């Protein structure tokens, strides 16, 4: 599924990575605990999280994740966007809850990591 399709399904805003909306995502992982994200063995999965701070972006950088959707209307700060851009990340933001976001994506065919 493309980032563009995900944006439509979740009524999301693209905070950065507008030039990458044709990239595709097959799998996702939802967590507010970065320690869990750091144990993932797979790369290139979309992170769904309500934890919106600079360490979310740092965790993605270390875990080789390049797409995140911040749920529950969490606002992304400029210093987060700077690091996200530096690492060619795609950052989306939706007002939907984590449960709803995961449910919509599941129904649309996005697979879990485990």
């Amino acid at each position: 599924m493309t980032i563009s399709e995900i944006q439509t399904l979740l009524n999301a805003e693209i905070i950065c990575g507008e030039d990458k909306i044709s990239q595709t995502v097959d799998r996702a992982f939802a967590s507010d605990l970065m320690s869990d994200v750091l144990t993932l063995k797979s790369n290139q999965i979309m992170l769904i999280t309500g934890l919106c701070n600079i360490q979310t972006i740092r965790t993605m950088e270390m875990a080789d994740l390049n797409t995140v959707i911040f749920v529950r209307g969490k606002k992304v700060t400029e210093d987060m966007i700077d690091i996200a851009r530096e690492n060619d990340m795609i950052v989306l933001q939706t007002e939907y809850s984590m449960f709803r976001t995961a449910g919509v994506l599941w129904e649309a065919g996005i697979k879990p990591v485990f």
Partner: protein
Amino acid sequence: MMTFEYQVQPGDFTNAGFASSQVKKTLKQLNVDPAIIKRVVVALYEAEVNIVAHAHKGMIYVTVDNDKIAIKLEDEGPGIPDIDLAMTVGYSTASPHVREMGFGAGMGLPNIKNNVDYLNVKSEVGVGTTVELVVNF
């Protein structure tokens, strides 16, 4: 052989991960296998966050060889009274602030161990902790 040093600012979650980010850039430039880079920087980042979360002074010393990377993290801080207990998944002494940042679930040291080829943790209560880790290329 290349060596690098980074100072860690305890309590400063804005800059936590800076050293890990620099090491990642260096290893990418050296064309190290991305899967190995991930293991190195995940372990280093966990250890860096530990210093930010617990210590009051910290340094990171990185040595990159042709066949491996060796990292030593030295901090001055409360130390770890029981290292075996600290290595147990789920055991944590992290503050509520650290938990708000998405850490403090008692997974750091076990995750470091899972990602490295060698790990040595030395600690003295009230003095500080030294973590040495090696990842072979």
